[in-house]
């Protein structure tokens, strides 16, 4: 009996062995990128095999490095295409004055295991604060497990950007229907946080997880 056609995808099992130093890697159930504890390289599945993933590290105080997807974005909505920080600030009702208003805005999408609502809140806070981050000179730093895949990052980014909008816009169905975000230059970065009891603090951005 033949009904609708279904494109089959072969399921195969790939052993987690570091392609650089041949050490065995470990992985949690939800993890999508795997870091070698020997050489610190980060690997992910691509086309049925492990491929090296570049991770950018931002400088700051703290020993726990949380992974984020980081990208510049433009928003298409009723008010046109918004691709600079000034336009985005206007859209989200931010009164903050930024020196680089003509620069593209950046969105932060938490890539570590966190309940969805908390991840949206954290991403929103980081995005609307327009943090100035400096790249760390250290390489191959240990990062927390990555659980959000690159494919899913744009969807989460759209929710984070919707959460930044002022309420009048969120209550306008025509605006919502027209809303769409386009990410460019998506990359995986790590940001250091300090542990204080059960909380993780990023003092530079005044953030708490």
């Amino acid at each position, binding site marked *: 009996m033949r009904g609708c056609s279904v494109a089959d*995808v072969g399921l195969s099992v790939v052993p987690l062995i570091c392609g650089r130093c041949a050490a065995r890697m470990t992985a949690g159930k939800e993890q999508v990128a795997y870091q070698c504890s020997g050489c610190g390289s980060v690997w992910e599945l691509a086309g049925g*095999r492990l491929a090296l993933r570049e991770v950018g590290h931002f400088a700051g105080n703290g020993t726990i490095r949380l992974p984020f997807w980081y990208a510049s974005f433009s928003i298409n909505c009723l008010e046109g295409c918004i691709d600079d920080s000034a336009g985005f600030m206007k859209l989200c009702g931010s009164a903050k004055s930024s020196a680089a208003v003509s620069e593209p805005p950046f969105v932060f999408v938490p890539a570590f295991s966190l309940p969805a609502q908390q991840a949206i809140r954290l991403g929103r806070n980081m995005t609307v604060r327009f943090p100035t981050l400096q790249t760390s000179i250290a390489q191959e730093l240990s990062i927390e497990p990555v659980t959000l895949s690159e494919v899913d990052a744009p969807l*989460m980014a759209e929710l984070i950007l919707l959460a930044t909008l002022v309420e009048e816009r969120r209550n306008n169905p025509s605006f919502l229907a027209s809303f769409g975000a386009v990410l460019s230059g998506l990359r995986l970065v790590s940001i250091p946080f300090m542990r204080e009891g059960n909380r993780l603090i990023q003092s530079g951005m005044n953030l708490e997880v």
Partner: protein
Amino acid sequence: MATIVFKCPHCGGPFECAEGDRGSVCGFCGVTSVISGDTGVHRLLIRERIDLNAARTAVRKLIATGTKSHEDAASFSFTEGTLIFLPFWRVRGMAMGWQWREKETFREEFDYDENGTRYTRTVKGPNERSFSLLAKPLDFSTPAGDYTVFGQVRAGLAAAVLKCEVMDYPDAAARATVVDPLKGIAQARQEALAMTQGSGDSNGSIRREARVRISSEWLALTYYPVWRLLFTRGDKVYPVTIDAVNGDVVKCRFPGAEERERFLPLALIALLVLGWTTMPLVGVAATALAAYLLKWRTGTLAVSSIITLLAGTPERSAGVQRG
């Protein structure tokens, strides 16, 4: 959650992974492995646990128990049996998006009429608009076709706890009939998303907009085994569906044995003849007694049932029916 059994790429031992998980550790060699191909449709198969003989026995037992007659069970002869794999869609992931609602609001106002009697009236208030971001886990399964002919196969529930294996289509097709899905991926996704959106409060909603998509999607077609057996009696064919995992008879319909009433019609006729030939009063009493007996036996005094009884037309006893 279903467990999928693979072969460990490092040591070749059986490697088990929960459905939707991306990786697991091999219990034999301790190497962590990850599942490749987490996008697209995976075909998984649940193996049958009972063979054809066990399925036949289950049906015979059911007929014997249902009709309380071993002769009756033996009167049905087995003709053929086919193993069939029925596909079920399984959608797991995270439903993410937004929902916007406009609701009517009402409030109660109290007032007094000219007699000073207090009364209440309901007044429409301004419409209430609400926006919410949606991000919640999704776990949905639905038949990939219309299986009413097979009865209610509870595969969705069973597939969540049983061990599955990656389907070897040629092997499965060689030993069984593999039903292809009639319901497409898009429809399965749509149903899953509708379930997510429909679970909220929709009382008084006059307008609703939403854009919800599935992230971290795990889409699988799980094939569930059933036995389809054919029994015959005379020139009639009786199909039976049996769950090939737990041996439950899912759908069948076997009629009971024919019963022909012989004693009661003769006794009633004899009673009436005797009564009316003796004297009219005894005839009236005999008629009343006959009516009572008819009512007791057939439950009604309808002319058709009286004729059926007196003519000795055969009646069927309750048979066995499932599904």
